[in-house]
């Protein structure tokens, strides 16, 4: 019996253990077929992945282009950045062409190797353009927050914390700008700037909840270059350079060099005469008269109305409040 089993094994083992050389047809065809299938699947998946990534790159670049376009940096800077964006897009198109023309796994592998080289060359540039765009927008945001702080202060809110937060963000922005010029800016620097800006923004949001002008209040924001008189019942912030003489129910002033008033907040019955370059923000009822020089303004007769722009010439005045 054992002999029979041994003979049977001897007969079958060579067939199982036969090398591919001995059985060329069956063994190799089966292995190669499976391998090709896997490679084909990997090729398809990888190509699809790369195509999606390239599409995302395209979309991101387009959005960056739009953001640069809508930013308020000078036309020259805009053109310069748009040119850099064009260069990056051209390089991305090169990667696209390489990946797109790959017909099999090996070609795709070569294409991605070449693409990696291109990407290493442009990814840093993409980041620098993104940072430049970020910084220009942040500059604008901080300017807006400063204007909002003027509004709050002229309404009578304590803006010390907001002003401090804006100043801190401005210092960080300055330091980021210097690092960008030296090519040493890092994502950590940008994150730090973002944190400072968010602090200032959250403080502005907090104060906005306390900012509730009376329905009878008017709001006036004016830039005066010359001699003016501001009279009425209001809270007003006047800041700039020049001579200021004020009588008011209450007033507080901050002086700069040579004991000149740089910012003045007046409350109640107000009579202010100024000569110089000033920004005036007022809430309440009153009249601004331009005695000499020029002025531009934005104002609301009443709080629930819309802002209207205008200019004043010598001898003209604008009244606000309901």
């Amino acid at each position, binding site marked *: 019996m054992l002999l029979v089993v041994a003979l049977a094994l001897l007969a079958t083992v060579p067939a199982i253990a036969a090398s591919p050389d001995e059985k060329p047809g069956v063994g190799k065809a089966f292995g190669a077929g499976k391998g090709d299938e896997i490679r084909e699947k990997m090729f398809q998946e990888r190509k699809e992945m790369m195509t999606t990534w390239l599409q995302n790159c395209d979309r991101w670049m387009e959005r*960056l282009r739009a953001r640069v376009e809508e930013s308020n940096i000078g036309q020259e800077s805009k053109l310069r950045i748009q040119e850099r964006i064009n260069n990056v897009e051209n390089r991305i198109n090169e990667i696209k062409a390489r990946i797109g023309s790959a017909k099999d796994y090996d070609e795709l592998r070569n294409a991605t190797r070449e693409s990696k080289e291109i990407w290493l060359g442009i990814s840093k540039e993409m980041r620098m353009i993104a940072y430049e*765009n*970020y910084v220009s927008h942040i500059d604008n945001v901080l300017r807006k927050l400063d204007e909002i702080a003027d509004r709050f202060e002229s309404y009578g809110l304590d803006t010390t914390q907001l002003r401090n937060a804006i100043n801190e963000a401005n210092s960080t922005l300055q330091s980021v700008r210097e690092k960008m010029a030296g090519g040493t800016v890092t994502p950590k620097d940008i994150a730090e700037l973002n944190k400072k800006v968010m602090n200032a923004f959250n403080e*502005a949001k907090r104060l906005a909840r306390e900012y509730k002008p009376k329905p009878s209040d008017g709001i006036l924001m004016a830039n005066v270059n010359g001699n003016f008189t501001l009279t009425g019942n209001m809270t007003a912030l006047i800041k700039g350079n020049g001579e200021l003489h004020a009588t008011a129910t209450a007033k507080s002033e901050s002086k700069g060099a040579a004991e000149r008033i740089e910012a003045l907040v007046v409350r109640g019955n107000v009579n202010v005469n100024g000569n110089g370059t000033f920004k005036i923000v007022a809430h309440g009822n009153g009249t601004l008269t331009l005695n000499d020089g020029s002025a531009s303004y934005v104002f609301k007769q009443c709080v629930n109305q819309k802002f209207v722009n205008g200019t004043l010439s010598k001898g003209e005045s604008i009244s606000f409040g309901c």
Partner: protein
Amino acid sequence: MKRFSIFLITISLLFLGCSSPEGGKAPVTPATTPSKPTPTPTQTPAEQSTGSDLGIEDIQKDLEELEKMLSELEELENVTFEV
């Protein structure tokens, strides 16, 4: 026995009375003359904060978009070229 039954019935009635659902018969309340409705102050736009004209929402949108762009760039940078 009879007294005990009466006692039990009384207790049961008292119990039922105390635990009657709220949706049951509403308690009789003394009739009152309808009071003059208190005027609720209507908020006119003028009484609301003029925060919307401060541009806070626009700044928020701007900041969100900037943050989004930077985080998306990070995602794009995380590409692997290994095949």
